[in-house]
């Protein structure tokens, strides 16, 4: 590809004709933009990319990105993505979803995906609410958020700390982006795709409908300057001290990547033979 093609391959070319039905002002628009910018910058062929999701507003992403896509079931984005990557290791696999899908229904998969370290990128659009089901508290909702009728006095439960959990579970690439800065987010996505292993990007993605106060995030999020860290103990301390509003690549460390030991390509008959008693 020549240098002069740079301006001709536009992020827009990675979008489908399906129009997003997210609420106006939703942060997920910026995530879509950042993903397409990253793909355009890397000049990845559409057939070399697979975008897998679970259920939720943000999980509608595969419909809007012109690559292979699979809109899976609730909380199962990571097993689906992992399975695909194992059998099609040449694909760039991106998993995407929300905080409810990833940290609650799929919480167990999340920990083990960090531990297993299959080479894929996981983008979690965290708006700290279940938006699609009309505004219930999610795992990352603050304990005192009392705007949902289901939890009129707040949940009373400390919020899940996904980045600390990911670190403890063995993830080697941990980043936080912000939908208000899609260009910076596109950099994180490129770095995550290039990272050999499981790469987690938590994106602060405001929900203007059920969490309108999150519009203030654009005044609160800041680029962290003392990162990335490479020592897990330092990273744990850093995350424990952080208020959740620092963005950037937080932790980066190489870990052995899990790969299938056996050649993929068995026929159904071969597989049945293995299970025969």
């Amino acid at each position, binding site marked *: 590809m020549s240098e002069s093609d740079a301006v001709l391959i536009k992020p*827009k070319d990675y979008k489908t004709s399906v*129009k997003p039905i997210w609420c*106006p002002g939703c942060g997920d628009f910026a995530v879509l933009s950042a993903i397409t910018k990253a793909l355009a910058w890397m000049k990845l062929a559409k057939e070399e990319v697979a975008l897998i999701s679970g259920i939720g507003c943000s999980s509608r992403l595969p419909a809007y990105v012109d690559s292979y896509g699979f809109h899976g079931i609730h909380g199962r984005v990571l097993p689906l993505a992992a399975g695909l990557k194992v059998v099609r290791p040449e694909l760039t696999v991106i998993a995407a979803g929300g905080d409810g899908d990833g940290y609650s229904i799929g919480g167990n998969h999340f920990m083990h995906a960090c531990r297993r370290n299959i080479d894929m990128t996981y983008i979690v659009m965290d708006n700290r609410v279940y938006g699609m089901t009309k*505004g219930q508290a999610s795992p990352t909702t603050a304990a005192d958020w009392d705007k949902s009728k289901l939890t009129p006095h707040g949940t009373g439960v400390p919020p899940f700390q996904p980045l600390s959990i990911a670190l403890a579970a063995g993830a080697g690439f941990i980043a936080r982006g912000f939908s208000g800065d899609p260009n910076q987010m596109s950099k994180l996505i490129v770095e995550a795709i290039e990272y050999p292993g499981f790469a987690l990007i938590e994106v602060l993605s405001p929900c203007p409908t059920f969490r309108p106060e999150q519009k203030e995030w654009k005044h609160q999020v800041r680029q962290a300057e003392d990162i990335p860290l490479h020592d897990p103990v330092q990273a744990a301390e850093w995350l424990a001290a952080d208020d959740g509003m620092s963005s950037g690549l937080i932790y980066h460390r190489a870990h052995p990547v899990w790969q299938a030991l056996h050649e993929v390509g068995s026929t159904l008959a071969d597989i049945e033979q293995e299970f025969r008693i």
Partner: protein
Amino acid sequence: MTVPHIQSVEEFIVHAHALKCESEEQLEMCADSLRAHNNPEAATVFRTLSQMIGETIQELEAMAEGRELPQVPPWDFHWQLVDDPQCMDEVHYLINERKALELAQLNEQRALKYFQDTAEVVTDQAVKELAQRLHDHEQRFFQYIEQRLQQLEEDVAHHDDLDPPNMPE
């Protein structure tokens, strides 16, 4: 706003093209979203403005033909550094045409400022002329919005939502 040290017409075309593509994308997203939320009036405003920006993009792409363009990653575009209005997160599904025009105007201010600052700062005469030309484009865009605003009635509050999405009390 930080004006990059633009050294050639090619470098400037890449920056200008990316900047206008971002604007177009934002307006298109707003148009699509408002269309999906049954607000065709505001959607049409954003669509029309997006198409106007598309004309500038086509002009830049015509200029780019036959040139060796530098590759600049999205995160290295300098207009992003400070005072980015990021106004499109203010789009509400019940906004009226006036508010839509005002938000689009706000969104486009960074391009206006970027082209103006570049025209003032760069020493390369060809870049200066192109920046000035694009600045003139922007001003026509702003004039169009101003005319549309004058044609509209004074601002009115959002329509009442008979089925509000949230239940804060």
